[in-house]
C-alpha cells in the first residue's frame, strides 16, 4: 500500500499498463515534456520515448482519428483530452467511428481505445474547463463510460480501461486529482473488481444516494452530516455509467425505499434520468418516494464565482434527501 494522490495513481496505472503491454501508447496535447496540464503523464515520455508518448498537434479529431488507425494496426492508444470542454471537436470520430467500429466490422476490428477526460467543476476554472459531458457518451452504444472516485480505483480502473477490448471513455474527476488514498500498487489486475460494477461505499437504511466521480466524496460527507439528523444514508459509487449497474442500486433501494441520484452534469437527460427510469421499473412497489435528482442546472456551466451555486454540495444533497424522506 502506498499513499498517493489520484493524479499520481493514474500516472502509476498508465506506467504499469505501458510496462505490461508494449502496444499501449499515449497520445494527446502537452502530455510529453509537460506531463499534461495536470501532470498525469509526468515522466512517461522520458521513460518510454516519443514513439509511445506522443505529443500531438492541436487537433482533437486528429488525435482520436489517428488513434483509430493505430488501433487497427494493433496498438492500444490511450488518448488524453485536455479538458472536458475540448472533447467536442472529436465527437464525430468518437460517436461515428470509435463507438461503431466493432459493430460495423462484425467484431473483426475492435477499438481498444481509452479516452481519458478530466471532467467536472469546482476548481475555479474559466469556461469549458468544468463540464460534465458523460451523458453524451453513455447514450452512445458501443462506448463504455467509467469514472473513478478515488486514487485506489483510479489506479486499477485506468488499467482495466486500457486492457478492455472495447473503447472506454474514462472520466477523471479533476477536482479530486489531489486527494490521497492508499493504493495497492502490486494488486493483480485479474483480482480487481469489475469496473462496471457499482460499489456500496457506505451502507445505510433510510435513503440510497447514487453518485460517481467527484460526487462520491460529497455524498459521503452528506451521509456523515445526516447522522446528526438520525438519517442513515447508503452511498453507492456507480463507477460505471455504461454499462450502468442497476442491480446493485435496485438491491439497495428495495431496502431503503428511497433513491437520490447526484451528479454535477445537468439533470435534464443526465445519468439520473436513466437511473430513475430503471429503478422505478425495477423497484416500483418498494419506492416510498419518486427517485429524486440533484445535479447541475439546465444552463451552460457558469463563471467560476458562481459555480458553488451550480454544483451539488453537501447541503443540496441533504435537501434532496429531506425531500425524499418528506414524500
Amino acid at each position, binding site marked *: 500500500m502506498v499513499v498517493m494522490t489520484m493524479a499520481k495513481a493514474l500516472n502509476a496505472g498508465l506506467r504499469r499498463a505501458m510496462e505490461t503491454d508494449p502496444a499501449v501508447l499515449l497520445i494527446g496535447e502537452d502530455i510529453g515534456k509537460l506531463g499534461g496540464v495536470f501532470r498525469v503523464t509526468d515522466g512517461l515520455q522520458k521513460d518510454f520515448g516519443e514513439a509511445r508518448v506522443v505529443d500531438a498537434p492541436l487537433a482533437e479529431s486528429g488525435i482520436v482519428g*489517428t488513434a483509430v488507425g493505430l488501433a487497427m494496426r494493433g496498438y492500444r492508444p490511450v488518448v488524453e483530452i485536455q479538458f472536458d470542454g475540448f472533447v467536442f471537436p472529436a465527437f464525430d470520430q468518437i460517436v461515428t467511428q470509435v463507438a461503431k467500429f466493432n459493430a*460495423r466490422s462484425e467484431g473483426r476490428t475492435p477499438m481498444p481505445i481509452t479516452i481519458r477526460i478530466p471532467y467536472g467543476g469546482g476548481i475555479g476554472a474559466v469556461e469549458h474547463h468544468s463540464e460534465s459531458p458523460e451523458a453524451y457518451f453513455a447514450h452512445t452504444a458501443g462506448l463504455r463510460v467509467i469514472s473513478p472516485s478515488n486514487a485506489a480505483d483510479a489506479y486499477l480502473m485506468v488499467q482495466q480501461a486500457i486492457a478492455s477490448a472495447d473503447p472506454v471513455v474514462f472520466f477523471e474527476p479533476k477536482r479530486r486529482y489531489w486527494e490521497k488514498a492508499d493504493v495497492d500498487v502490486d494488486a493483480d489486475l485479474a483480482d480487481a473488481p469489475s469496473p462496471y460494477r457499482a460499489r456500496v461505499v457506505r451502507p445505510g437504511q433510510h435513503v440510497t444516494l447514487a453518485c460517481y466521480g467527484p460526487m462520491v466524496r460529497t455524498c459521503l460527507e452528506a451521509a456523515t452530516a445526516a447522522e446528526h439528523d438520525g438519517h442513515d444514508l447508503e452511498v453507492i459509487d456507480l463507477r460505471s455509467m455504461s454499462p450502468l449497474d442497476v442491480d446493485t442500486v435496485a438491491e439497495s433501494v428495495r431496502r431503503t425505499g428511497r433513491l437520490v441520484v447526484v451528479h454535477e452534469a445537468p439533470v435534464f437527460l443526465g445519468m439520473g434520468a436513466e437511473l430513475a427510469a430503471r429503478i422505478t421499473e425495477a423497484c416500483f412497489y418498494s419506492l416510498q418516494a419518486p427517485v429524486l435528482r440533484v445535479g447541475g442546472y439546465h444552463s451552460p456551466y457558469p463563471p467560476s464565482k458562481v459555480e458553488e451555486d451550480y454544483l451539488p454540495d453537501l447541503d443540496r444533497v441533504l435537501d434532496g434527501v429531506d425531500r425524499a424522506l418528506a414524500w
Partner: protein
Amino acid sequence: MTADGGPELVQLLTPEGERVHHPEYDIDITPEELRALYRDLVLVRRVDLEATALQRQGELGLWAPLLGQEAAQIGSGRALRPGDYAFPTYREHGVAWTRGVAPLTLLGLFRGVTNGGWDPHDHNFALYTIVIGDQTLHAVGYAMGIQRDGTEDAVICYFGDGASSQGDVNESFVFASVFNAPVVFFCQNNQWAISAPLERQTQIPLYRRAAGFGFPGVRVDGNDVLAVLAVTRAALQRARDGAGPTLVEAFTYRMGAHTTSDDPTRYRVAAELEAWKLKDPIERVRVHLARGGLADHDFFDAVEAEAEQLAVELRAGCRKLESRGIDTIFEHVYAEPHPLVAKERAEAAAYHASFQSGATVGGGH
C-alpha cells in the same frame, strides 16, 4: 479552373490511346501487364454496371457507381504491395477488386445486410467509410503504426474533391506531415460532390493544397491507368523511403449519378458528360492494345466473356445475400459482454418468441 486538368496533368496514355512520355514519371510495362490492367478495368466496370442494374431491380437499396473512375482506382490499387493498406470511401469498388475483395462482398452494405462485409485485415482494405473524410485520419494513424513497427509498408487513403473541405481531411494532412507518416493521399477529383461543383470546394487546383501543409502534390490524369499507376507507385515509394506523405489528385469525372438516388440532370449539363466520354479510361487502353498489336480479338472477347460471367454470378449471389437477422443488432455492439445489450437481446428474443408461441400479449395485432 481548366476543365482539361491544365499543363500540370501527368499523362502517359492520351485519350486517343497514344503512349506519351513525361519527364518526371514514366513506367516500364509489359504487354501482359497492360492486358491485365485492361481486364481489371473492364471487369470492375461490368461489376459496377451490374450493381446499378441490381439497384434498379430492387435488389440493392443504393449503389454508388464508380463509372468513369476505373483507371484512377485500378491504377492506384495496382500500385500497392500486399503489405500496404488502403482506406476507401464508399465508391472504391475498383480498389476493392485489386485488394482481392470479391465484388459480391461489396454488395452486402448496399443491400442492407451488413454495415461492413469483409475482414479488413484479410485484404489490407479498410471498411467503406460513409461519413466524409473520417477515414483519412484512420489512414494516418495506421501509417504511424507502420512507422513504429519499422516495416516497409505504406498506406493509401482515398477521398473525394468534396471531402477536401472537411476539417478531418485537413487535420490528417497536418498529422501526416508533422509525423512524416508513410501515407499517400489519393484524391479522386471527379469534379462533383453530389451537386456541388469543384469550385465550391476550392479556387485552385486541389493538388496544390498539399504544398500548404509542406508535402508534395501532383495532378495525374485520373482516366489514364498508366499515369495513375506510375504516379501512385512513386508516391508510395516516397512513403516507404521515409520521405513522408504525398497528395495525388486524380483528375477524373463521375460519369454516373452520385448514387442511384441522385438525379444529376438537375445540376449539370449534358455537354460536360459528352466531353468526358471522349476521355474514357477503358477505351484508350483498348485502342492502345489493339493498334499496337498487343492484344487480339480473342483476348478482348475473352475479357468480355469473363465480365459477363462475373455479372451473372454477381446477380445470382446478390439475391442470396441474407442478413443475420436480429442478431445483427446485438452481436457485436461490444467485444466483451455488456449487461444492457444482453438484457435487451433477451427481451427481444422473448418478444419474438411470444409471436411464435401464439401468445396473445403484444402479438395479437
